[in-house]
Every structure is written in structure tokens, then in C-alpha cells.
């Protein structure tokens, strides 16, 4: 599986934010997108996920399952985490695992397993509304694990996480890459992935 981006152009609010950007990423690789605020990191991730219209260029996952579109093979994680505060962590994750993974995949983890990985097993039955910001973020990261999708699009995944959680998440990301997954992450902080490629927006693009 390979992510190929060719001459991607995206406008936002009438301004050309991403101008003829090209890169490619093969299975097992991670790409860290860096750059100053407002340079278009989030825009790039949203455009890759198909949430923003492309002005030009193409985004494709080569040699994936032929009948599945790219957005259906991608996880998108941004500041808002898609968790309903009246529902418990477990109910939220159970919903997303059933909604985002149409066919059962052996690489998807159970809700309990994913919660154990992010260290939230003890508060699985608590409503999301009472969690701290860091715990909410960890619950959102667990969503990536309960439904296997090869491409992870992560927008500032590490905000509000403490050091232990960052290390745990780095392990989860390395495992994802080892299973042939791809990661595109926009971040200002080191992800803890040594072999990650880097794409600096604003200077190179």
C-alpha cells in the first residue's frame, strides 16, 4: 500500500493554502508535517481525508482494496474527538468500532484491549464528560485502535498528553507502522518515531 499525493492544491477562504504539493509514502512509513501556525498543516490533513475539496492534483492509496475509497481507509483525528460526553468511554468506542469498521478485521483491537493500551481501562464506565482533557485525548486515540484503517491522519495528536501517554502512543504508532500502516501527523512536538520522514511546509512547499 502506498499513499501518492501529486500536485495537490487546496484553497481555503479564497486563499491558495497548499500549492502543488507532491509526496509519497509507502507502507510502514510515517510522515511528520511541520511548519509555523497557519501554514496549512490542518488543511493538508483535511484535504487528504477528503473533508475539503481539492482545487487540483490527486490523492490516492495505491494497491489498496480496489472497491474502497481513500476516506474509508483513513482515520482522522483532530482537536474535536467525536466523543459524546453523556456516554461512557466504552459506549463511545464501541459505537465507533462498529461504525468505522464495516468488516471485522483481525488487526482491530477490542474496546478493552484498546483502552488498556492507552491506559484508560479503569475508567471505561465513566462518562466522557467527566474526563480530563488528557484522558479525553487518550480515549480519542483508542478510537484509532478499535477499527483498523491503514492510513492515520493525525492533527496535533500529542496535545494535552503527559509523558507516559506519549510513550505509550509512540509504541502504538510503531506497531501500526509495523503492520503496514501509514501515518501522516501534523505536529510541533517530536512524535517519538525515529524513522519518520519530515515534510516542512512553508519553506519547502
Amino acid at each position: 500500500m502506498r499513499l501518492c499525493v501529486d500536485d495537490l492544491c487546496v484553497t481555503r477562504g479564497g486563499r491558495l493554502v497548499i500549492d502543488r504539493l507532491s509526496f509519497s509514502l509507502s507502507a510502514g512509513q510515517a510522515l511528520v508535517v511541520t511548519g509555523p501556525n497557519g501554514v496549512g498543516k490542518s488543511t493538508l490533513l483535511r484535504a487528504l481525508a477528503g473533508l475539503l475539496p481539492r482545487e487540483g492534483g490527486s490523492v490516492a492509496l495505491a494497491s489498496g482494496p480496489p472497491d474502497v475509497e481513500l476516506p474509508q481507509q483513513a482515520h482522522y483525528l483532530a482537536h474535536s474527538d467525536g466523543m459524546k460526553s453523556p456516554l461512557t468511554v466504552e459506549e463511545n468506542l464501541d459505537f465507533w468500532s462498529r461504525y468505522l469498521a464495516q468488516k471485522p478485521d483481525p488487526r482491530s483491537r477490542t474496546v478493552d484491549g484498546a483502552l488498556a493500551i492507552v491506559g484508560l481501562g479503569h475508567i471505561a464506565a465513566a462518562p466522557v464528560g467527566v474526563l480530563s482533557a488528557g484522558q479525553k485525548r487518550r480515549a480519542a486515540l483508542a478510537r484509532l485502535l478499535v477499527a483498523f484503517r491503514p492510513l492515520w491522519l493525525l492533527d496535533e495528536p500529542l496535545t494535552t498528553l503527559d509523558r507516559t501517554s506519549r510513550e505509550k502512543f509512540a509504541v502504538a504508532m510503531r506497531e501500526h507502522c509495523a503492520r503496514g500502516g501509514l501515518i501522516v501527523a501534523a505536529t510541533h512536538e517530536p512524535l517519538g518515531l525515529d524513522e519518520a520522514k519530515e515534510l516542512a511546509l512553508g519553506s519547502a512547499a
Partner: protein
Amino acid sequence: MTSPLSALFLREWRVARRLGGSGAMGVVFFLTLVAIVPFAVGPDPNLLARIGPAMLWIAALLATLLCLDRLFQADAEDGSLDLFHLAETPLELAVLVKCAAHWAATGLPLILAAPFLGLMLQQERMALLGVVATLLVGTPALTLIGAIGAAATVTVRRGGLLMALLVLPLTIPVLIFGVSAAEAASGGTVPFYAPFAILCAITLAALALCPFAAAAALRYLGE
């Protein structure tokens, strides 16, 4: 295909029933509105019996609209809407299931409460049956039409009023045929089935068209 949709239904149902959900709010609003009618128009039993079906329908319409403005806005705020775009389930089906869950959580309680409130408005047995039957058939159309307004105002902060302004004209046919069928049930010159059949037709048309319109609005605004 059924599993993601039933999961969505269950999630929407739970959110609506838990604390701060819209489930109870509609019924309480409905109750308040109907309860103040006799104080406003006076306690004349004949007058109340005549305007009763119309009052129940107006109250049901407003109660439905009151609860609808957060239908998609809550999902847009917490990021769920972005994830719906990434799911394999078409957005149209997700809209339909959200409407169904919303109707089950807010519309059904209104229908269950209607006969008891009808008693306060001097409604006879046949009239009560007529109101319940027309509400049962007509409120899904209100929810579905309202979903278009909720989708179109999803990015507007405090868009509830704007949504009501957009949606109210579209709900007028439902109101007209709902009330005329409910009134025909307790006697009158019009047969019950003529307006009732048109009400059924409006609901079926709304069922077929509204999910597409609402999903199109969500797609356009999501970009």
C-alpha cells in the same frame, strides 16, 4: 450494513435519553403550551373541543422544532460529523437513522402524552384517536423536514431561530392536513380518510427526499 446503523441508532437514543438530552424537553414544552391554552382562551368546553386538535398540533409542531436545532450541530461541534464523512455508511442513511432515533426519543413521547393533554381540551374519544393517529403519521414528516433546516444551519451559532424560520413554511402542509384529518375524525363535513391519506403521502415523500437534501447540505457546509 445493519450493524453500523443500529449502533448509530443506539448511540443517538442514549444521548437523547440521558441527562441534558432533548428527550424530556419536548414533552415538557408540549405540556406547558397545551396547559396554558384554556387559561388564555377561556374555559368554555365547546370552544376548547373545537380548537383542541389544532392546539395539540401547533404545540407538537413547535415542540418538534424546539428539539431539532441540535440534531447535527452537536455532531459538528464534537467532530463526529467529520467522522461520518469517512465512514462507509452513506451520509444519507446516517441522516435517516439520526432522524429515526430523534423521532423515537422526542416524537413518540409527544404522541403518548397527546391523549392525556387532549382530555384537558375537552376532546371526545374519536377526536383523541384522530389526534393520536395524525400525530403518529405526521410527526415523522416534521422531524425529517426539520432535519433539512438543522443541516442547513449546522454552522450557525444559535441557529435555532433561523432554522425555525426556514422550516416553518415547509411544515405548513403537514399542519393543514394533520389538523383537518384530526378534526374530521370527530365528525364534520370532510371524510377522515381524504386528508389522512394526503398526510401519509407527505410523510412518505419526506422520507424519500429529506435525507438526501439534509445530507447534501451537510456535505456542502462541511467543505
